[in-house]
């Protein structure tokens, strides 16, 4: 079956507005505005089983349903295009090929939620995606599909771009709201959740780029069609998998949800690079647990990946080959999180550098038996941090201790990294 997100892509340049229109683009918006109530659009999203593609996998329609409709003052929609999770580049690839699915999806979401004014929060470094979006928004306005009185109706919706200046925590939805308001982007405490009290204290929905880009297809073809794209009954729709590391083709692929890990690697990725052997991978961006060769036949959908102890996350698959030191890899990951800690709460600000120091010592051959216990304690206690950054940082460490404890022990007993030349 034809998958919705990449179907308009051209090999070497972005799809044009005319081409997107010709291929059925903005038909879903016209259909909704002329013949569906906002509630019906929301119901279609609920029935489709669409789950957030930003990492947590929260059901999108359910999130929308938390927004109170009776509060005075404006409501807001924010598209999260911060995408700074190491190993993740799917939103960039999507937007560099086609900004229109997102624009149409956001307009539909605004219609469903009763939002007049939406923002796309874009990370530094994604200037090309931002330029495509800026152009796409202007074209949609020109065609009467965005702005005042859309498609001749009395519905008016605007989308603005907000360009950031680089910081991973800005992707966390409450930090993002602070960033957008021009405040220092530390996270806010929840509750109240953004759906009730978010941007400028108004009800706010934050959704990922890929999540919102799926909405037009759901409205156009119906929730049943969307559900049936997945290969297993637990899943719904397609997923963008962006692969890096030791595979032959490192690229971003749209595949049915429920495709197995092994099928992704042996299929579109063309197998492992240069005859290397698969050792492990991180399936969903830096803050997810390692999967091993045992997991190659695990279908990649939210529930099944969670069942085997990891997360589908952002779909950023990072593949490690046999002979690659996973203590060193985990050290690199923790180093990232320690640097990106926003410094707001003590467990994360102080805990991550401490964990990093221990891992660095183990990797350098100075590890001790008791370090394992200290690391395990941190996995447990860093879950008491203020936001999800620190628990996310602990995920690869927990995976290391679960699946590769022997490898850590070998570092300690041999007093050196067993993968480095002697």
């Amino acid at each position, binding site marked *: 079956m034809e998958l919705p997100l990449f179907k308009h892509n051209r090999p070497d340049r972005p799809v044009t507005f005319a081409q997107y229109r010709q291929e059925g683009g903005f038909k879903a918006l016209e259909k909704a505005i002329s013949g569906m109530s906002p509630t019906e659009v929301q119901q279609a999203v609920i029935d489709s089983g669409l789950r957030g593609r930003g990492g947590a996998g929260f059901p999108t329609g359910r999130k929308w349903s938390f927004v109170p409709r009776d509060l005075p003052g404006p409501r807001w929609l924010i598209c999260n295009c911060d995408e700074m999770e190491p*190993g*993740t580049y799917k939103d960039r690839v999507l937007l560099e090929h086609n900004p229109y699915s997102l624009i149409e999806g956001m307009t539909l979401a605004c219609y469903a939620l009763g939002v007049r004014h939406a923002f796309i929060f874009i990370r530094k470094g994604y200037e090309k995606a931002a330029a495509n979006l800026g152009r796409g928004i202007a074209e949609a306005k020109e065609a009467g599909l965005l702005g005042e009185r859309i498609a001749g109706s009395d519905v008016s919706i605007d989308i603005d771009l907000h360009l950031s*200046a*680089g*910081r991973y925590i800005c992707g966390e939805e409450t930090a993002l709201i602070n960033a957008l308001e*021009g405040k220092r982007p530390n996270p806010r405490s929840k509750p109240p959740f953004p759906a009730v009290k978010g941007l400028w204290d108004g009800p706010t929905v934050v959704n990922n780029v890929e999540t919102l880009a799926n909405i037009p297809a759901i409205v156009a073809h119906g929730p049943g069609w969307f559900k049936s794209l997945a290969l297993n009954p637990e899943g719904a729709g397609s997923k963008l998998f*962006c692969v*890096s590391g030791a595979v032959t083709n*490192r690229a971003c692929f749209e595949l049915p949800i429920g495709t197995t890990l092994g099928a992704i690697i042996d299929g579109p990725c063309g197998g492992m690079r240069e005859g290397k052997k698969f050792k492990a991978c991180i399936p969903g961006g830096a803050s997810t647990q390692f999967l091993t060769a045992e997991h190659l036949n695990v279908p990649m959908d939210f529930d099944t990946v969670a069942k085997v102890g990891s997360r589908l996350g952002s779909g950023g698959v990072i593949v490690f080959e046999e002979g690659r030191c996973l203590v060193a890899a985990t050290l690199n990951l923790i180093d990232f999180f320690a640097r990106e800690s*926003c410094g707001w709460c003590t467990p994360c600000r102080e805990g991550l550098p401490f964990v990093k120091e221990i891992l660095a010592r183990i990797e350098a051959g100075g590890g001790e038996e008791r370090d394992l216990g200290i690391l395990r304690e941190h996995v447990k206690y860093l879950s008491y941090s203020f936001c999800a950054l620190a628990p996310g940082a602990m995920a690869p460490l927990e995976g290391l201790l679960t699946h590769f404890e022997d490898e850590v022990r070998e570092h300690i007993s041999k007093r050196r990294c067993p993968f480095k030349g002697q």
Partner: protein
Amino acid sequence: MMPEALRTSLQARVAAAVTPREAAVDVMKELQAHYGWLTDEAVGEAARLLGLSELQVEELATFYEMIYRRPVGKKVIHVCDSISCWCACCEEIMRHLKERLGVEPGGTSADGMFTLLPCCCMGMCGDSPAMSVNGTPYGKLTPELVDEILARERALAS
């Protein structure tokens, strides 16, 4: 002093925002593009434009990876050292740049042309190892390609 045209365009940006602060990052980035880095003078100008105290601008400026509160060279090189680039030997690229430019990360080459800094994932993981030079992304780096890029960026600057 900031040129009148820049002031006018920044005032327009601030006026178009839902609240003035929403434009804070744009204002800082524009001022940085003008001065090369976010100078003390620029912090003061941003504060006045946004109706904030200098301290409030400072707490924003020091938060973001791509706002420089210290002098930098004509061009800033950011080398990604996150996991996918690490798998693709970004350490070798950093070593090569340190050698070519004669600086440690954080330093600026003697001719004032390049400042060398590490950075977090650039979203170029499929084309790792990656770096950017004044915002232009480069992927699939090798030491030879890095030399070519340095030469090209140098030529473009003069």
